[in-house]
């Protein structure tokens, strides 16, 4: 690494110090590390790779019409940002917890980000994370592959095993990823079925992105695509048409409305401090269980069918323990 490191650092310093745009020829003449007597074509390839490396590091290299290079300093260097001590602590806790989480897919980039924004010494809190608990390494690795494919808009061949244990091969256009209840999910168009599907990343046995023409996109995601539209609460999964339910959080429980609703449906505060939550429900049974599990302080006001399912269920639970 040390030769390449020296050359890259020298190149970065040279560009940073240059008062005017510089040509490839002057880079070759001035920057230590390019082998003397190297053929022109070999030098250009090496210089090309070095420029890519610098750009990956965050150096904004511009090239003018004459093929000369300059560093856009305002786009390269971070502006100072004054974070309060609690904010710095929050960034460091979140980042250092996830750095060691095998199910967090962006750990290596996070490490570099942390080095850039918050590497100041100081006590590191005791912290850890395991955001996906089942096969965390597999989920982290697969999400990392899928993220690259989403960004480059490349199709992916999936070997997938469904909940019934049936294996299949599918070509998909990946649009988005989300984390829910400790599992990563992929939202993608199943090309063969011409339909949008949600895949549990833990069930993807293998993900093979199309490596042909890596810089040319294979598809465009649907306009306005937002992965959060595909995240469901447990009672929103199923094929029946949804009905709207109204749940009231008592004034004492109102502060939990935001976290319980998790961005689904709408919340409205009433004068007495209670909060009304209107939300789409597919499975009344699961909805009833959800209300009980997230109580106390939740009251179902409609639809009547949901109230009935809830009453029947609670009576059953009481009877079974009488």
């Amino acid at each position, binding site marked *: *690494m040390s030769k390449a490191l020296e050359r890259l*650092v020298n190149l*970065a*310093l040279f560009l940073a110090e240059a008062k005017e745009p510089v040509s490839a020829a002057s880079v070759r003449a001035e920057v*230590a590390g390019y082998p003397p007597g190297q053929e022109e074509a070999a030098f250009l390839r090496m210089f090309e790779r070095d420029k890519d490396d610098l*750009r990956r590091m965050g150096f*904004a290299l511009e090239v003018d019409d004459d093929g000369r290079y300059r560093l856009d300093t305002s*786009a*390269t260097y*971070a*502006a100072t940002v004054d974070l309060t*001590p609690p904010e710095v*602590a*929050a*960034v460091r*806790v*979140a980042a250092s917890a996830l750095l060691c*989480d095998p199910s967090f897919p*962006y750990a290596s980039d996070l*490490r*570099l*980000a*942390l*080095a*850039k*924004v918050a*590497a*100041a*010494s100081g*006590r*590191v*809190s*005791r912290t*850890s*994370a395991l955001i996906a*608990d089942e096969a965390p390494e597999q989920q982290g690795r697969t999400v990392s592959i899928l993220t690259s494919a*989403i960004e480059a808009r490349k199709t992916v061949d999936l070997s997938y095993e469904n909940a019934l244990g049936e294996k299949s091969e599918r070509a998909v256009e990946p*649009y988005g*990823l989300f*984390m829910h209840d*400790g599992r990563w999910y992929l939202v993608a168009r199943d090309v063969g079925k011409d339909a949008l599907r949600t895949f549990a990343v833990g069930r993807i046995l293998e993900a093979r992105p199309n490596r042909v023409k890596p810089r040319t996109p294979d598809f465009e995601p649907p306009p306005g695509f937002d*992965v959060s539209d595909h995240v469901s609460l447990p009672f929103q999964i199923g094929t029946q048409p949804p009905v709207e339910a109204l749940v009231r959080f008592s004034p*004492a429980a109102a502060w939990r409305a935001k*976290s319980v609703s*998790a*961005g689904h449906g709408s919340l409205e505060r009433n004068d007495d401090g209670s909060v009304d939550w209107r939300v789409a429900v597919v499975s009344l049974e699961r909805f009833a*269980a959800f209300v*009980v*599990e997230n109580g*106390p*302080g939740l009251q179902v006001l409609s639809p009547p069918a949901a109230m009935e399912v809830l*009453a*029947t*269920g*609670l*009576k*059953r639970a*009481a*009877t*079974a323990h009488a």
Partner: protein
Amino acid sequence: MPELGVRDLMAVLARLSPWCFYEIDEIARSIGVDVVQLREGLETLSTCGVAPYGPGDCLPLLVQGNRLYVTGELPGVNGPVRLSAPEARALAAALQSAGFSAEDNLTRRLLQAAATVTFDAKDLERTVRATTSGHSPDVFEALSQATATAAVVRILYTRAGATEMTEREIEPVALYAERGAWYVTAWCRRADDWRTFRVDRIASAGLTGERFEMRSTDWDAVGLSGPSERFTGARTATLRFRDPVAFSERDWPGASISGEDQDGSLLVEVPYGSPDWIARRVASRFGTVVVLAPQEVRAAVTALATATLAEVLPGAGTEPSTDLG
């Protein structure tokens, strides 16, 4: 430990100040790289510079033992280089999972100042959601600050299944994320014992201004040897699952199957801390899961089902039915 790369060294370089010295092992720890590799990398850095590469043209770095001395002005490096798009994505995703959305003040300010100009955290949110629990960012900030500085925090906490908020002073020692939720482990002055609190059940958290002395570093004794430890309650309940397929250890942490009933039901031992917690989970299974023992949990389920019935459906019959069981 990951291989030290050029990017790490450039990131370190950008954060150094002239005429200062640094402990190399501290730098290594703060960015999670191997200290030996870092020392070698810094030695290599000290030979880099600009033409004609005389003594005054090289980076003014000197490595001696564990110390890195910066012996002059650093040429050409005007501070930290902006985060590349993948780095910004990683940071935004980490912040997301700690409860800070793209719209939150911290995320916005940090990424605007530090990330490459082409990065948009809102675009990221439309394709990647690493969001976990819905706690308040203010609470998370206060707890982070408190664990880093050994500061006492006053919290308003609602135990799972409880109606009343309780005010407690806690001495937080660790923050964990697991399966969609953050937890803080602390010495609770109210309970006079170690407790783990779910962060999304803390309505507010404020530093009292008091510092605390760490009561233990025996993390195994505190139950901090691994996040899952906290599920190991002192007591155990015996549950019967009418449908064996409905049981998953993931839903009942720490549970173990103890046998099978004659009718095919599954018997499971589940550790629990508070009867309210387990009673609520059992009640939400609407009779398909039944507590066989102990009696205190059976009674808690009945009480909870009856009370919930009255609360959720005012006016509905509260008498347990006999025809539905």
